[in-house]
């Protein structure tokens, strides 16, 4: 079994969101970077669990990013990936990123490609579906459970107001979210071991981009909270009914 896990880097969830260069670039100065939580907690950890159940499993990691992504990919290796490929490019165009990942995936003949549900910075929720289409593979999005049954995968995915269980023959592309696995902390052995695991850097293939970010805006500041006394909750209900008109 060969699994490819797509790893992206995102600003720490508490990072201050600000923009530079006339609001055309994210102000990354002093920002702490983390592995995108969906990629780490769910996609990667579930892959590691599959390997724990079957030692013949290989976990390859792929990231599209510049050299500043290396600490992130090393951390993913410390958690349990076997080897990693970094495609040396910086892009926020989903099609471009997906094309790069798909070209690696094609060469590697993977049984499974895992992505996270979405990146928590650009919130595309698109890469998995694009990679699947580029590889002409089935795609199960927003998976909360994943098990193997021979050469089939049994997957539970979230749908409006509930969930759906489905069965699909490998290979398949799956986007992973909460429920797939539990967050893990890398241990010392993993961290030491990660240093000697292969991290291959490849130059990007020539690919199209479909979109570009023209600028960023911050949402207008909230007017401030209107506090109602704890002794007078009727007033809150009145305000919601008459002023905000939401109930």
């Amino acid at each position, binding site marked *: 079994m060969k699994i490819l896990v797509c790893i992206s880097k995102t600003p720490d969830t508490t990072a201050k969101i600000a923009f530079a260069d006339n609001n055309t670039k994210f102000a990354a100065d002093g920002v702490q970077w983390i592995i995108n939580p969906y990629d780490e907690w769910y996609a990667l950890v579930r892959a590691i669990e599959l390997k724990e159940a079957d030692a013949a499993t290989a976990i390859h990691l792929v990231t599209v990013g510049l050299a500043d992504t290396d600490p992130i990919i090393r951390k993913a290796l410390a958690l349990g990936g076997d080897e990693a490929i970094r495609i040396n490019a910086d892009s926020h165009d989903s099609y471009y990123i997906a094309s790069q990942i798909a070209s690696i995936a094609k060469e590697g003949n993977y049984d499974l490609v895992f992505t996270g549900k979405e990146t928590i910075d650009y919130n595309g929720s698109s890469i998995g*579906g694009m990679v699947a289409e580029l590889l002409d593979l089935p795609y199960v999005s927003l998976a909360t459970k994943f098990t193997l049954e021979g050469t089939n995968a049994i997957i539970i995915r979230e749908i*409006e107001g509930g*969930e759906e269980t489905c069965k699909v*023959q490998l290979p398949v592309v799956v986007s992973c979210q909460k429920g797939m696995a539990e967050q893990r902390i890398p241990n010392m052995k993993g961290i030491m071991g990660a240093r000697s695991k292969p991290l291959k850097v490849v130059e990007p293939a020539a690919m199209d981009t479909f979109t570009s970010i023209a600028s960023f805006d911050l949402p207008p500041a909230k007017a401030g909270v209107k506090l109602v006394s704890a002794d007078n909750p009727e007033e809150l209900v009145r305000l919601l009914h008459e002023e*905000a008109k939401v109930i």
Partner: protein
Amino acid sequence: MSVLIFLDQADNNIKKSSFEAAGYGAAIAKQIGVAAEAIVLGTVNDDLTTLGQYGVTKVHTVKNDALNNVDAQVFTKIIADAATAIGATVIVFSNNFNGKAIAPRLSVRLKAGLVSGAVALPDTTSGFIVKKNVFSGKAFANVSINTAIKIISLNPNSFSVATTSAMAEVIEFATTITDAKVKVTSTDKVVGEVPLSEAEIVVSGGRGLKGPENWGLVTELAKLLGATTACSRPVADIGWRPHHEHVGQTGLAIAPNLYFAIGISGAIQHLAGVNRSKTIVVINKDSEAPFFKAADYGIVGDAFEVMPKIIDAVKKMKGIS
């Protein structure tokens, strides 16, 4: 040329978020001077001529039970065929579960740039620029789509639709349906409740409620308001509430008209999932709780004392005693 809107259905009814997508797609069509057409796959009970109210002139249907479960590959093929047949230059989805499964595939298939999570009409004065949510609701990006065909998936609850009394023409779209490689073996839905992703009012509880035995305060208010219930992450993690209620950065991101937060501190990761709500009400005994900074209305007080009074006041307002 036209705008094609994908209308998603569940249990043979068009979803609320799809009507919003229809209104949004029709507004784009008007803006660029083309017709708005829609496509519905599977069997639906709704009278599709009424989609005219949202500005749609033609509804293309493929009535086949095999399409009542969504397979991204099968749907992509049919929507791509329809888009090509009618010469669609803009294709609109709702950014819901199925939109997230299909739109990216279609983007590759049609070599059409995709913006997912749009929150406003595109700016078409020069080029085609779509405003979308980024950084989990903490900012917006204005994204230029540089391909001939454009795909937009609209975040639910971000466009207000105006309706008219027009009627749409309903036409069967002739196409071949490929076999789904993903076989759905069972579905499990919470019945009788509006799904969290579509809810207009959400009542949510946090660790401040001390234990699952106190959730009556949340569920009773929710029932009175016709709301759906939600919770913070630790509440789902400890097992006080089911996982699908977890909202936030790592849970569901929602944008209801009213988000009522009880005993939730308002950590940045929680806010990331709820900050697009139109009105936020916070009940917290700590006046320093960060949630008050993001709130529109609030009461500093003990939920166990305040909530029964709020419930009574709502009953009084609704004329229930």
